[in-house]
């Protein structure tokens, strides 16, 4: 059962083209959606999650035509939006039970079992009686994933789940996600390259509403491998280099600037050094493409 997205476009009323003719086929497993802020990731996620209508195109999940059969989709959907909050003064236990009811888990005993199990899975059982609105960032995210997993979803969408988590939390989160990905389609949207690198079998890079790259991470690296060059320069020189080369990234090191440049021919003569391309280089070269 694949998720097939065909010719999906969406333009906001202010003229912003959020999605521009997106075509994707997403199979079971972790699927990374990489892109900078404002690339259209959340628009695409919401569109898949039936919270937004595209201007055109179709989205199908197996037999379900998502745009027409929203209810059918919602029955098999787990969704963790990028930005969400909670009712004040409601405990995790209560709120998860609340969502369980919304998801149609009618049997009281089953509901209590799954709620407790999920709280345990997400390591929130100890704090289940505390108000969710008072949770720390990591706990909130874990609660978010707990509610997304209610009712055995076939499609799980997680939008920027690790933003603001400390490395330990993030790691734990990744483990959880990859386990989910064994049986379901998991779409992970992020602007953190490492997330995708570690987790995803398939990925796309999105920018300005279009898909810039679609493939596996290693395929991605192959596209730029041998074309990434590194040089240490003085800060003041950056504008000149930007004019002359396709500078994809720069970071400060010991008062100087290390820059990476995407160039198909050798730049050794200009003082550059060849480097092994990373997914990061792919990402930056894609989104800074001139």
């Amino acid at each position, binding site marked *: 059962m694949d998720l097939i997205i065909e010719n999906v476009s969406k333009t906001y009323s202010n003229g912003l083209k959020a999605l521009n003719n997106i075509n994707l086929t997403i199979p079971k497993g972790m699927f990374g959606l990489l892109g900078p802020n404002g690339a259209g990731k959340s628009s695409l996620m919401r569109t898949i999650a039936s919270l937004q209508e595209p201007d055109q195109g179709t989205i199908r999940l197996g037999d379900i035509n998502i745009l027409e059969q929203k209810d059918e989709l919602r*029955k098999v959907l787990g*969704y963790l939006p990028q930005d969400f909050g909670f009712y004040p003064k409601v405990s995790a236990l209560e709120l998860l039970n609340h*969502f369980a009811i919304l*998801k149609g*888990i009618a049997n009281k005993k089953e509901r209590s079992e799954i709620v407790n199990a999920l709280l345990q*899975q997400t*390591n929130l059982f100890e704090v289940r009686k*505390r108000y969710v609105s008072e949770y720390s960032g990591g706990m909130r995210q874990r609660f978010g994933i707990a509610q997304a*997993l209610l*009712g055995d979803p076939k499609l799980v969408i997680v939008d920027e789940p690790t933003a603001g988590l400390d490395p330990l939390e993030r790691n734990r989160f990744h483990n959880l996600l990859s386990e989910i990905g064994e049986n379901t389609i998991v779409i992970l949207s992020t602007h953190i390259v490492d997330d995708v690198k570690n987790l995803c079998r398939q990925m796309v890079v999105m920018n300005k509403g279009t898909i810039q790259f679609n493939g596996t991470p290693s395929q991605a690296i192959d596209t730029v491998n041998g074309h990434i060059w590194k040089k240490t320069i003085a800060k003041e020189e950056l504008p000149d280099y930007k004019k002359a080369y396709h500078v994809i990234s720069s970071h400060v090191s010991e008062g100087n600037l290390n820059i990476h440049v995407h160039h198909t021919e050798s730049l050794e003569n200009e003082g550059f050094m060849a480097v092994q391309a990373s997914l990061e280089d792919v990402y930056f070269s894609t989104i800074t493409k001139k």
Partner: protein
Amino acid sequence: MFKEIYFFELRQGFKKPATYIYFSIYFGLSLVVGMAIVGYFNTATTDTNTIANSTYAVSEMLVGFNDSILGLVNSVILVAIMATAIQKDYEYNTHPLFFTKPIKKSTYFFGRFLGAFTLALLVFFGQVIGYFTGTLFGLGTDLVGPFHAWSFLSPFLVFTVPNLLLLGIIFFSLTTFTRNTLTAYLLCIILLIIRIVSDTITADLDNKTMAALLEPFGANALQLATQYWTPSEQNSLAIPLSGILLYNRLLWLAIAIAITAISYRKFHFSQFLAPAFKINWFSKKSAEGEQTAIVSPFDSLARLPKVTQVFSWKQGISQCLYLAKFEFKKLIGTTFFIVLCALGIVMMVIISQFMGSMYDTETYPVTYQILEVASGGFLFFILIILVFFAGNSIWRERENRLDELVGASPVSNVVLFFSKYLALIFVLFILLSLVLLTGVGVQLSQGFTQINLTEYMVELYGKSWLSMSITAGLCMAVQVLSPNKYLGFFISLVPILFINILFGLLEWNDKLYIFNSSGPRLPYSDMNGFGHTLPVYYLYKAYWLNIVLFLMLVSLLFFPRGKEKNYKAKYRLSGKHYGIGYKVAMLATWTIAFSCGAYIYYNTHVLHVFRTALEIEQLQADYEKTFKPYERIRQARITHALIDVDIYPDKRSLATKGYYFLKNKHEVPLDTLYINYQTEEDSYYFSELAPDRAHTVLQNDSIQGVKIFVLREKLQPGDSLKLSFAFRLEPNGFSNNNPSTDVVHNGSFFNNMLLPSIGYESRAELSANSARKKYGLPPKERMAKVDDMEARMNNYLSKDADWIRFETKVSTSVDQIAIAPGYLQKEWEENGRRYFHYTMDSPILNFYSYLSANYEVKKDKWKDVDIEVYYHKGHEYNLERMIKSVQHSLDYYTANFGPYQHRQVRIIEFPRYASFAQSFPNTIPYSESIGFITKVDDSDKSKIDVPFYVTAHEVAHQWWGHQVVGGNVQGSVLMSESMSQYSALMVMEKEYGRDKMKKFLRYEMDNYLKGRTSEGKKEMPLMLVENQAYIHYNKGSVVMYALRDYLGEDTLNKALRNYLQKTAFQEPPYTNSIEFVNTLREATPDSLKYIIKDMFEDITLYENYVKDLSYTKRQDGKYVVNMTLGSQKFKADSLGKQVRVPVNDYIDIGIFSNKDSSGEDIPLLLQKIKMDEPLKAFTFTVDREPTSAGLDPYNKLIDRNPDNNTWKFGSTPPPVRLDDKEETTVTIKVGE
């Protein structure tokens, strides 16, 4: 920097469309009000003496914007503008940007505050500009005077600016500190309560000053400062920024400034870093402390238990119920809710202490009083709660950013929406139950146990709950469609409030388009219960409920699921996906609404004629234009009325058959017979209406109800004819107007107005001259001149008869008693009905009534006169008082005025559809709402025995009205109403003593002085009174009581007796007030003759005051009192414009002590002195230590400032504003 922040705030405001919306709301609303006042709209017209563009009128308008729900609108707007001035920096997280800049605290705080305040002033100025523009439409009419900018600006400065500052700073500070606008709303509701309670407690005159001082918006203060302003003063005077009004403004301005100062001191930039200060009175503290996350590896997901998901119709319902419960808890768990409930209860309890006050005497807390009076404030609160909760509920997920989580779950929009609706309905249930509990609590706490639970159930759960649920549904639908919550609040108020105001002004009163209308209504009556209108009520509610349900379903098409903002996308997300059930529901609600509407239309427009006020006016004009020529054509007069009336209470119908004998009392033969009758439009169906002589019908106007016969053979002088008639009253469906209450299930009461009458009815003419002008009719005097001999050929009660013989047979259902004037000849049962035959043995006026109800009877006697009280079971409270009053009245009146013409006095209760008592020959119908449920507390000396007084007044009418009756000219009510007031006062005084009269007369004075302020035509002197209640009742009491004081009771009563003997049962021409006043004048010694002119022929007012006073204790233990007293005397014209006249009057002077055990004022000296100079100094010696003294201490003379007549020793009386230069004091020493 201050400038930058200030202008930044302003610029921000000007950029927001909301600012312009708020301005437009005020502009539009006051524009319409202004236009309506100057008569721009094509509506029915009344006369007025006041102009729309006076300072007074503008003040009233501006102050009115603080009342009830409009006050709430003010608050919502003000919160939107001001509350968030600083708060928004926090909300949008821009505060670090500001607070890290080198800005001084004062610059930031006041820059923001004043910027927002300026914006608020500009928005609220829309009220003034709108009203100004509205009144411009009246240019060239009498309804506007010359325009002065100051008339519009000064009320704004005096009222709106301080009010805005007060509310603004409260909102600004509270929101800044609590980061929550709810606390601000709460406070403004508390202020509103103070406003409502202040209004209520002014029913007691003693509370007026306190209320005026403490009421935050200045409305009561304005009212007190201008309470006695005559029309002329209203048009010309500026707002008197002095006295109570000044203190009130200063007090609240000071409070506002104090709050500003405190907020400023407490405000720190760093406060936003700390967690918000929360009012957390009711929630338990979050139990556990911060817990460290326990690190443990994740278990395998494979271990998750399997669940089954159910998506059935049944599951939808159980989801809906669960969510409703969840939402309900969220709604009532808020501090806002709990505090509002507490406030509502408090308000209800306070108001219940002042219920149904009449002369400051309360009624028993019967259930309908509790429901109508006391719970009014609470029900208003519920409306507030409902509007707010609908918004909070619909926006809850979005505000808590849960909308995407919920939106992506497989729950239907219908479940999400209707669960919230259910929750709100349940909240309403809780609130109404609170009203019930509080109401019962109030009743029990006042020792009242006759609690009508059925009435509570029907009114609260059967009616209010349903009705409010309809409103709630509308609010929810609005919020679903609204792009934001605050706009949603406003749009909700459009049908609930704004439309009603607008339609009211335009006189668009078809209940088919007045939102959530209830159809024709009857108030609850203990006698008649809910009446017959309950089914119609539910018809109207079914109509509105289905309209609202339909709108709710429409709103679901655009249910905001997900993140889409525009309606097309919302429709594609939500609307497209509904199934067949939804479509069926839409069709069903539409069909039901349409059918109900059609059925209502059939009743109100087809079965009944629907007329607007304007159309009725037109009809009146037509009547006059068509039939005026007949006014001069003499008519035969009724001499006998013999009538059979069959009352069918269960069908509310009537069958009447009877005849009059009409006699030609003129000196010329008559050939035209002009009959007025009730029309089929009002469900009267005549089967017979004809004289027994050969005739032709000249005209039969079935709309106006006029039938004119021409007799073939003229009716010779002294000859009589018989006019027979028979008709049925068959009520048919319902009309848009409230139903007639003539014949009801229990408690029918009607008089001979229902029967045919003879001759052109000049009382049916349009009376407002402004309206007459519109239809090209000449101006009309309200009444014929006092000496109009033509008019004096009729008495003022009946234009077609003098004294008649009366006999009637009346039948009713077997469980009821039917009563009409006369003595019961026979009573029998026949065909399951009960018959009564009454005959009057002496001539009576052509003025008689019929009553029928299931009565209990209490009987007593005075000498050989039978006293009977027919009352509703359960209303036994005051029967003894009424009987005692009848007895004492008969005692006094027979001794002082002359014999009683009947052998019986009957008091008969009727439902509270009207609240008066009325005297018919030996028959006194008496409303259940006055007297019967009045609670007289004999232990409280300040309370007036209202049932005793009303009864005495009505019994007095058997003399004053039914023995002597004036001609149909000015002043005749002096001899009926004023004299009945005087008579009742005397009976009361005998029973309760002079002291108790003081309070009663204070109310009479107050009502007179207030009454004259809203006179629309001319204030007349008492002798020329033109049926003006404030003159013939209230001024009449004051004047007659003073006259008794000047002349002495015996002298006065002797004169009255003489007059009565001369005029009782006289034939035309009837007596007039000139004859009456002349009788009084003859009895008055020459030295006092001036009072007759002052009191009866002119409008005379005094300003009596104490200038200063002191005393010294003498060696012999006596006290020497020195005081300077002033008296100014004025004569007023018909508009209340007064001129000073020299004073040369005998006035009481009094010195009092309250030093004895009772604490009451005991007069040490009370005598009449002659004030022949405007200011005089007096010296008296008294035996005991005085505490107060003054001129006219008992307020016998009409005085707009009664409070400064006496003053306490040891304090300085306030200076009196004088029209001209300081009076010179003439010193007089009055010996020991």
